[in-house]
């Protein structure tokens, strides 16, 4: 069953629940939030993501009412709330430290807000029980906060902040104190609860994985500004700046100058072809010869005796045939015909020759002397002639022992391998010293893998795998 995609931000008719209009916040000389505008819609799970000190916590505290704003407007449901004190806002917050009242039981903690509203006892009972069920804490209602575990405290804090059914729930680094495994479980639980209650959640975090997992949209912040607001996949695959690309996940960055690529491939010869041909023409044969020679080392090409043969020779033939030569016998260098044949075999795999398969258009990024430029078919030709940064995720970079059939391929040497179990990240140093990270899924067991430290390898990626970012 196809579900309609939840994307109120694309619908111009939708009214935002929260609206920041040119909001600024200054602490003395320091500007924490700089003329920031942002809209958050109902039922969203919105993440404010950034390094510490980027202003994300200040944003949240302004929403809760703990910080006054120095300029601009904050609207909730179209109502200006910047002057409303925290205890009068239909907004609740889950604190980073959970801030559970240590002198009250779990039940009383959850009932705290409801009692302040002056609700009758029956309603409070019912609501608290509902919250306890929602967070699966019913068994612990009579305990004090210091008698339960960190994960349980987190759930109580969530229950307490949801008890008053706020229009907006703020979560300040809610999972920071949990260990990794529990954090991952809790992320899904949070999403589940958010969906069940239909409350709008705004989460502040510096953990990009957490933001990617839970959020419907992410705002990446830096120094009091919002750099990009988008869905997690867009943030990851189409970052709008080097900052975002670098902050979210792992990335390889190549800075260089952009040149437009001709749209019609037949009309003009591919510059890479020329470069590639020029760069490899004399070297290629040598490389090929190396390959052939390397091949000769393997059993089927070298006519070497096996152990039984050795024994037979040593015992029997040596007497009349003399001592056996121990140096491995080499075949003569490959004849020109052989080279040609080998080249013919390999030729279709070479990017230069497979040029028609590469998407036309886009730009070339000239990033280092002596290295072919990067082909980025998805690059905006408008940036031609400008300084740009080509960014590509390590998992989109392949690593091979042989030159791969890929539009962009560079030779390098494996310097480091980070084995993470499910994946391995290879740090490959290219000829000009640039380090490139390439990731490979470890589909095979460790023993069967063939690339290791100091190996000469080829890294490759497609013409659309990366993103060209203006500096």
């Amino acid at each position: 069953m196809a579900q309609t995609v939840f994307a109120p931000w694309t619908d111009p008719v939708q009214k935002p629940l929260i609206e920041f209009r040119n909001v600024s916040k200054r602490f003395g000389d320091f500007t924490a939030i700089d003329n920031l505008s942002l809209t958050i819609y109902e039922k969203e799970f919105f993440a404010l993501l950034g390094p510490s000190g980027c202003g994300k916590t200040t944003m949240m505290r302004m929403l809760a009412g703990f910080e006054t704003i120095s300029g601009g407007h904050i609207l909730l449901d179209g109502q200006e709330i910047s002057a409303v004190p925290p205890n009068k806002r239909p907004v609740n917050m889950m604190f980073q430290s959970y801030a559970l009242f240590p002198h009250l039981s779990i039940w009383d903690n959850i009932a705290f807000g409801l009692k302040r509203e002056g609700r009758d006892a029956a309603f409070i009972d019912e609501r608290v029980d509902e919250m306890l069920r929602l967070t699966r804490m019913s068994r612990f209602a009579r305990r004090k906060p210091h008698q339960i575990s960190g994960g349980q405290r987190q759930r109580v804090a969530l229950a307490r902040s949801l008890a008053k059914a706020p229009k907006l729930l703020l979560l300040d680094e809610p999972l920071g104190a949990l260990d990794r495994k529990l954090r991952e479980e809790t992320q899904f639980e949070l999403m589940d609860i958010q969906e069940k209650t239909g409350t709008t959640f705004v989460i502040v975090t510096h953990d990009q994985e957490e933001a990617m997992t839970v959020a419907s949209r992410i705002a990446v912040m830096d120094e009091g500004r919002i750099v990009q607001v988008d869905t997690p996949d867009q943030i990851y695959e189409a970052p709008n700046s080097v900052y975002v690309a670098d902050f979210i996940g792992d990335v390889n960055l190549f800075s260089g100058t952009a040149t437009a690529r001709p749209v019609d491939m037949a009309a003009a010869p591919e510059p890479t072809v020329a470069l590639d041909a020029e760069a490899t023409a004399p070297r290629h044969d040598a490389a090929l010869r190396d390959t052939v020679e390397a091949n000769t080392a393997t059993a089927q090409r070298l006519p070497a005796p096996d152990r039984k043969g050795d024994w037979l020779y040593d015992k029997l033939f040596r007497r009349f045939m003399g001592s056996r030569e121990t140096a491995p016998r080499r075949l003569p260098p490959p004849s020109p015909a052989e080279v040609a044949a080998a080249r013919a075999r390999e030729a279709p795999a070479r990017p230069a020759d497979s040029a028609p398969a590469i998407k036309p258009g886009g730009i070339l990024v000239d990033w280092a002397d002596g290295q072919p430029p990067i082909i980025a078919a998805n690059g905006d030709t408008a940036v031609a002639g400008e300084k740009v940064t080509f960014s590509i995720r390590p998992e989109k970079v392949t690593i091979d022992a042989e030159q791969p059939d890929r539009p962009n391929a560079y030779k390098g040497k494996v310097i480091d391998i980070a084995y993470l179990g499910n994946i391995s990240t290879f740090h490959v140093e290219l000829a000009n010293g640039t380090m490139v990270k390439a990731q490979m899924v470890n589909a095979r067991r460790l023993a069967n893998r063939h690339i290791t430290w100091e190996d000469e390898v080829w890294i490759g990626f497609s013409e659309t795998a990366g993103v060209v970012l203006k500096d």
Partner: protein
Amino acid sequence: MRKAVLIAIPYLWLVALFLVPFLIVLKISLSDIALARPPYMPQLDLTQGWAGLTAFFSELDLDNFAFLATDDLYWKSYLSSLRIAALSTLITLAVGYPIAYGMARADHAWRPTLLMLVILPFWTSFLIRVYSWMGILSNEGTLNTVLQWLGVINEPLQIMNTPTAVYIGIVYTYLPFMVLPIYSALEKLDDSLLEAAEDLGCSRFTAFWLVTWPLSRSGIVAGCFLVFIPALGEFVIPSLLGGSSTLMIGKVLWEEFFNNRDWPVASAVAVILLLILIIPIVLFQRNEQKAREAEG
């Protein structure tokens, strides 16, 4: 073995410096006054062996305690002491809590200095400080001189030798004992608890009443006992500042001992005082233990 030794040290200390003196006082309180040296009898004469021991014990009686009940001076003094100690504890709390609260809310950089200022009076001898209060409170003292010079009053206030002077003296002397435990409770208080309370609909005042106050309770209780217990047996302050008009058991005890040389009655007064104090001391211990459990 090591553990046993470690535990034994404080117990030996207690036995040598508390239990043994107490037993001596108890023995004296059961003796009779005598014009002798020491001024009570019977004396334990161990040279006569078992007979001496039984003779000694047979002469001990509760006459002195019965005497305390007959003369209303004693129970009036006990009651007056309890009242003065309780009231001055409340005043100390009222003065000390805001001080502790202010210290705990002050900037981190300032806190060591403020703590220092609270402890600073201890650098001067207690007696000297009480004497200087005499200089301040007497009819020709600093306070009256300044007030008269300002024209607020035209004749000196009689503070010296009244219960007011005793209250001032006790509150002044024991204020640090109230401030420090409350400060230490408030300092541990997480600011986000107050924000959480406000976030859940409390005004500033209700947040204080529902969160800050109950969470500083262990400090309040500790401070109150630390003031109440020594104030109850206080002798120096009432005798220097209170004059003859203030009745306090500490003073009665002193007079019995030194003026009347009635050691047995003085000891009986001391034993009763200790029994009265045992109740708050046990309560205090309980509070400390509860506080420790809540933290653990």
